Every structure is written in C-alpha cells, then in structure tokens.
C-alpha cells in the first residue's frame, strides 16, 4: 500500500492542474488514512489543500484544512504551526467567497486566526491584510481603510505574504478606492519586473486592466492585456480570464471567443460562488455583445449558457452575497460593469 501511495503521489507531480489530479490525491489520502501513519494522512491533506487552490476547487481546501486543523489543535507539538497558519491565511481568503457562510461564522474564523497568530508569536499583519480583502469585497471602504492602516504598520514576519504579493494587493486596495493613479504607482515595481513571485505578475495584469481603461490609458491597457493573455494559465485564474474576456469583447472579438471557448467548461464546473459570479458576469457582457450580430458559429456549451441563464445566475449570486452582507454592493456592481462596458464600446467605436 505504501507503494501504491507513493506511486499515486508521484503521478500527480507530472499532471496538469485539474480535477483528475485532485481525484488521485483523494485516493492517496484514503490510502494514507487506512494503511499509513497519521503523519502521512496529515501531510497528504496539506498537499491536497494547496493543490485544491491551483486546480480550481478552492472550496475543497476548507475540507482538508478542517481535518488538519483539528489534528494540529489536539497535538500542536506534532505538526508545524507555521504551515498550518500559512494555510489558515488561504482559508481566510476563501471563506467569505461563499454567501452561504454567515457573517457570524466568518467573524469566528477571523477571531480564531487572530488568536492563534498571537499565540504562536506572529504579528497580525496577515490578519489585517485579509480583513482588508473581506471588507473590500463588500464595498465597506471605510473599514477597509482602517484595516489597511493596521496592515501597513504591523511588522512583517514569517507569516506575512511575500513582498510581491503584498505589493500587488496594495495596488488593488487603491484601485478599489478608485484612487487609480496611486494604485498604478503601487504596482510599478511589479510592472518593471523588480518584484515577482510564483503568482505575480500573472495576477497583476488582470488587476491593472480595468483601472488603465478608466484612466484612458488605452495603449498601456493593450500591452497589459497582451501580456496577460500570454501568461495567464491555469484553473485558478478564472476571474482573470473573465476580466480579459471583457476587454477583448470590446477590442478583439475573435480573441474573446477564443478565451470563452478555452474557459467556459472550467467556469461552469467552478463551484466557488464569488469567482463564479465574477466570471459569469464577464461571460454575460461578452455574450451580450456577441449576440448583437448574426453569427454562423455556434459557441461551446451554448445550450446551457444563454443570456437568460446568465442573467438569472449572476443576479441570484449577487443577491445571495448582498443578503449575507446586508448591502446592495454586488447588485450595484453588475450595473456598474454594464455601464463601464457600454462606455468603453463607445470609446473604441469612435477610434
């Protein structure tokens, strides 16, 4: 059984990110549970957690993490506190993406994380960072600003995100406050190649595109999109694919179609509601434009993906988030997006 376990793990290393990879890892976990040591079971779940994010099933992280956290809490001397806390950060970044998680539950998770940071001797820098993202997702910019201040002033330590990732989020923060120039400045070191990591600059391009268009920097937007188109690769970038699709819907329809065909099956299988919401909203904007002309080509998954279905799906997702958050931020976001693309189309038609 140890052989079969090793074999499965070995196979997963050379597999592309996707559900098939997770299925093999699940089998490995079950073997570890039955026949190997608890450490094996723990370690294979920790690996599974990070793979779940990369394979486009972030909700599965919550499942494997819950098991590991419990083992860790029972025997904190057995396992690395740093590793589990690092994963806990990911959990904080995912938990609010499901509207079915109540605000109370989310609050408890944040509190627990905070307490554990203090207990294991870490600063609260990542705690504040995650609070900023959570607040921004609801449009609560005032609270976000308070947390942002705390985030910047807490000291960096081993639990902090890498500098490139943080820098990227500084930029995102200002973009969300509509301080685009400031945001752009924050991203400069990344765009000049002075800061990078495993997911930066891939992540950055997508974040940059919208603000550049708002600032009427069309040339730079074009370059950024071209780079993003080249480097964005993997199921975890669903939201980024959507952003790019929107851009090409306005500027280069055949490219938008290509992106749609490349990603729609991934998007339909993606369960995490937040990412799904944003992606399907992009698809909707794309399909609205596409449907304006008579087309010979039949798009992939065209039976399921209709304008009515997209409208219903995005509206109900937005409503679910708004109900939980007690605001109308997501519903307004839909309208704002529609308005933006209308304006953009007008600009590009003129030129």
């Amino acid at each position, binding site marked *: 059984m140890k052989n079969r376990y090793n074999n499965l793990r070995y196979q997963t290393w050379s597999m592309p990110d996707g559900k098939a990879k997770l299925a093999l890892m699940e089998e490995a976990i079950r073997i570890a549970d039955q026949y190997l040591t608890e450490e094996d079971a723990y370690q294979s779940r920790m690996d599974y957690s990070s793979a779940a994010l990369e394979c486009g099933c972030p909700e599965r992280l919550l499942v494997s993490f*819950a*098991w590991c956290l419990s083992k860790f809490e029972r025997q904190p001397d057995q396992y690395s506190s740093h590793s589990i806390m690092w994963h806990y950060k990911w959990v904080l970044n995912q938990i609010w993406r499901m509207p079915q998680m109540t605000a109370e539950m989310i609050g408890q998770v944040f509190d627990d994380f905070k307490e554990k940071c203090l207990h294991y001797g870490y600063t609260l820098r990542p705690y504040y960072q995650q609070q900023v993202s959570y607040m921004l997702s609801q449009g609560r910019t005032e609270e976000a600003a308070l947390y942002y201040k705390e985030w910047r002033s807490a000291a960096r330590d081993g639990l902090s995100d890498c500098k490139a990732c943080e820098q990227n989020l500084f930029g995102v923060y200002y973009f969300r406050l509509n301080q685009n120039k400031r945001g752009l400045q924050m991203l400069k070191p990344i765009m000049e190649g002075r800061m990078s990591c495993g997911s930066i600059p891939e992540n950055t391009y997508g974040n940059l595109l919208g603000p550049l268009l708002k600032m009427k920097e069309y040339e730079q937007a074009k370059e950024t999109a071209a780079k993003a188109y*080249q480097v964005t690769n993997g199921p975890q970038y669903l939201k980024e694919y959507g952003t790019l699709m929107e851009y090409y819907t306005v500027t280069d329809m055949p490219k938008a179609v290509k992106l749609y065909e490349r990603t729609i099956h991934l998007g339909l299988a993606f369960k995490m509601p937040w990412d799904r919401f944003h992606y399907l909203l992009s698809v909707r904007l794309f399909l609205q434009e596409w449907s304006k002309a008579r087309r010979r080509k039949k798009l992939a998954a065209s039976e399921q993906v209709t304008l009515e279905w997209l409208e219903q799906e995005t509206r109900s997702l937005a409503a679910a988030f708004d109900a939980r958050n007690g605001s109308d931020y997501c519903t307004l976001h839909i309208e704002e997006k529609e308005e933006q693309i209308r304006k953009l189309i007008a600009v590009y038609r003129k030129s």
Partner: protein
Amino acid sequence: MENKNFQVNLQGLIDLLSNHLYSDAGVFIRELLQNGMDAITARRRLGHQFDAKVTVELYGSHTLAFHDNGCGLTASEIEQFLARIGSTTKKEQLDAADDFIGQFGVGLLACFVVCDEIVLITRSALEGDPLEWKGRPDGTYEIRKLKNQVPIGTTVYIKAKADYEEYFDYYRVSELLEHYGEFLPVPIELVEDKHKRIVNEAVPPWRMEKKEALDYGEKLRYQRAMDVIPLHSAIGGIEGVAYILPYSVSLQEEKKHKVYLKQMLLSDKLNNILPQWAFFVNGIMNTDSLRPTASRESFQENELFYTVRDELGSCIKQYLIDLSARDPELFKRIIGVHYASIKAMAVEDDELYELFIRHLSFETSYGTMDMDTIMKEHSAVLLAATLDEFRQIARVAKSQELLVINGGYVHDFALVRKIPDVWENADVALLDILQFSNRFQELDRADQLEVEPFLALSDELLQPHQCRSAIRWFEPADVPVLYNTNEEVQFLKLAEQSEKEANPLFADIVHVVMDELYDVPYARLCYNYNNPMVRKAVACKDPKLQQVCIELLYTQSLLMGHYPLSQEELRLMNGSLLQFMNMGLDQAVGGEA
C-alpha cells in the same frame, strides 16, 4: 539648494555584475567580441575600405590581447564612454542598438570579472594620435598619448586575476570564441606563439541546404533530426531553423533554443522564443530586431516579442500542413514520435486540429483506435471524463456495442469534445457514469417483482456506504455487478470524515461546503440478471444468505475497481467471506457424516 551627484561604488557594481547579472564569467569574451564587431561596423559606415578582422593573441602568464581593426576611439569618446558607465542614462538609451559608445563601456566592465586592470590602446579612424587608457575596477584610470604609431583600431590587454586563469588558457578562449562568435561575419583569428587559427569559418545552418543543415545539427547534438523546418519572421528580422527531435520529449522538459543576436550568440538555452506547444523542435536562429535584456542573455518580453513568437509558430504550422501533402510517410512518423506534443498543438489551434485529429489515437472500449477509424465506424461516441470512469465501464460498454472514449489522459477530453467541428454529424455525449447502467435492458414485469425484496435489502445494507442498487440485464454474463462512482463521491467521503474530525466551527464550515456546493451523489451498484450467480442469490429467498452475497459482491466490486476500502467495508468483506467459508465447511463436514 545645490544638486550633487552621489558616489557610486564601482567595486560594488563590478561585484554585482560578476555575481548577479551574468550567469558565467566567460561572457567577457562575448562583450569584447561585441565591442569589436560594433567598432568594425562603425568604421564601415565611415566609408573605409579595409579587410575587417578580429585577432585574439595569447601570451604566457595568462595575458590576452584582443584586437579589432574597427573605428577606434578618440580621446573625447573615451571620456564619454567612461562617463556613461556610471551615469543615469535611461535604460532605453542604453539598449538602443546603435549606441555604440554606451554599450562599449558596459561591455568593457565585464572584463573586470576576470582581471584587475584593463589596458586599452586605440587609434581612431577620425583623429591621428594613438591613445593608451588604463582602468581599474575601483573606477580610477589614466589616459596618455602614445608616441609609437599603431594601426587604426583597438586592442584590449587583460591579465587574469587569481582564480580566473583558466579563462585565459588556449583551449578555453578558443571554445568561448567559437561558442559566441561561430557565425560572426568577420574572421576571428586566435594566435598563440606561431600557431594561428581562424575560429569561425562556419556557415550558419539557416543558410545551408537541407542535407547540410541536418548534418550540422547531427554534429552539434549528436543525433540526426527527423527533418528541419526553416524559420522566418520579417518583423523580428529572424532567420533560422527548427530541428524536429528524433525522440519524444515531455511537456515539462526545459527547452533550449540557440539564439543569436546579430550573429552573436545570445543564449543557447533560451526557452521561450518558440510557442510552448512547439516542444518537439530545437531551434537555432538569428535575430536582428529583438531587444536583449541588460544581461544580454535573453530578450525583453514585449509585444514585439510575442508577435515574433507567433510568427515563428506559424512557420512550424505551415510546414506541417505542407508536409502532410508532400510527404505523408514522414508526416506519420513525426506524429508517431511526437504524439503528446501534437495533441497539445491540436488543442491550441483549430487549423492544426483539423490536420491532425484523424491521425490521433485514443483509448476506447474497442481498444486503441485512430479518430478516422472511430468516425468511420461510429457516429455516436460517449466520452468519459476520467480514466477511472472509463475503466469502470469499458468492458461492459463494448458488450453493449457502445463506443466509449477515455478522455482521462492529458488533452484527450478537449480533443474529443471538438469532434463535431470536423465531422459535423458526429454525436459526442458526455458520459454520466452514475446514469450509465440505465442504458441496460430492464427486466420484464414478472422478474421485476421477483427481485424487489432483494433490491430493497441491498439498498438498506448499502445505504451507510452511500450506494444505491439496481438490477438490469446486460452483457457480458460473467460480470455479476457493475459498480459506478464518480470522482465527487470520493471527495464527499473525505468531507464526511473531516466533518467528524473537525472542531465545531469548522465542522459547520465543512457541512456548508458539502450541503450547498455539492449534491451528494450516490454510487451505483447494478446487479446483472444475466449472471447465473446473481439469479441464484435472488432466488434463494434466504435473507441471511442474500445479505452475505450482497456484502461480498459489493466489497469485491470495490476491490476490482481499486477503491480503498473503509474500515467498515473491510469488516463486511471479512465477515461475509468467513461466513461463506463456514457454510462450505459445514456442508463438507455434513456431507462426510
């Protein structure tokens, strides 16, 4: 307020260059060659007629003289290039292809990686007096006029510093000159004592006839390529060749293309100049227009770069399209060797998809078949998303005359899904594994009534294992049960365990994930009424015996499908096996008595 310049510590800068910017100390040869070439170009622009030449002379005690008969430098140019090294000229200016002086200074700095002093003797093509410049890595230098006459051009003298002597040995210098300068259009002569040799007589492979180019590739890489593809990019000013490797390579393997910038080797391990899908070729090419990065070991990845890469990709594509008509034999052999690569290409590109799809083979319930044959014999196919699903039903599907394709291997799923793009009437349906047994023949009314209690018992027993039961009539008869599960069943088993194990807060969270994002799918166990043993089990009417049969058939089907058994399932299997053993023994003992 007064603006002041802060002091740059040149020693620190040199250290930075040697340890970080360049990947190998040997680049000083490249930089000297580059300076020489630029000087020769500049002198030609002045309209001078001369036989351009670079001479590298080696002396004892690890000293080297690098001479070119280019345009030389004037006193003011020397001052200027020195001022430029540390000055804050913008990057773009520094990289500008024609900024000879700016680059000259930076290039010379690379020499400090291997020596402690540079002596440069030069006579400009513009002014008369020869000059000597002596520079040291701390930034100090002297300049003086020479009385002796020297020919127009520049000679750089350097002496190895400790630990870098080997870079001044004959074999090493010769190797480096060849490495970087093999295709330079100006003769490079290497001299030691009385021995002289021109190191760069080679014609680049993109100027060769096909056979020669193949021979060249064989000499370089110790293996003969299957064919050679010419590469051109007008906007990238690229000429080159791509060798089709004679063995298959994995997607993960690092690509190593050899790329020259204006005939000078830029890198022999550039991995991104060709599209990612083109991992079955090895390129050698020269560009006149792409812009190098500061280290001059790769290119800046700007829009031009990506456009050029696409253009080179089109060359490879067009070659393959032509080849399929011109030499179908070779075309087939290439497909045979580079199967994985070609699948990756076909997924990416519609044109190539059309070209290749009929030649690609897939694992099906009828064995491995190419798509052309599949489409000739079947217009309707079922596509299994994972290898596991395919394995569950492959054997049974064939007996039902169903063609199922295994989409579990990399790219196969996407490739099969696109079939209707080429064969308009083809019907590709996704296999829903849990509904698969619904395709089997239903029992007639009387049989149905008879099996009902057995089925009810089976459902009751297997409920804790999230498995539902059915009975149908199907081929082959020797398969007693068909167990089907999808990948989410595995995940949900994990989730259940987590919920039990987790602290109360996270147990709730796991519960929400399972409840809200996943429908709990039950696995299916379909009994085959065509199987004599199943019929006997149904007919025996003894619930105790039936229970043992059900438990054993269930656990055996898990084992056959390589599914890990839970503790409870293991217990079932052991219990039922022991019972059967006992019954058998009882009978044997009873029989003897």
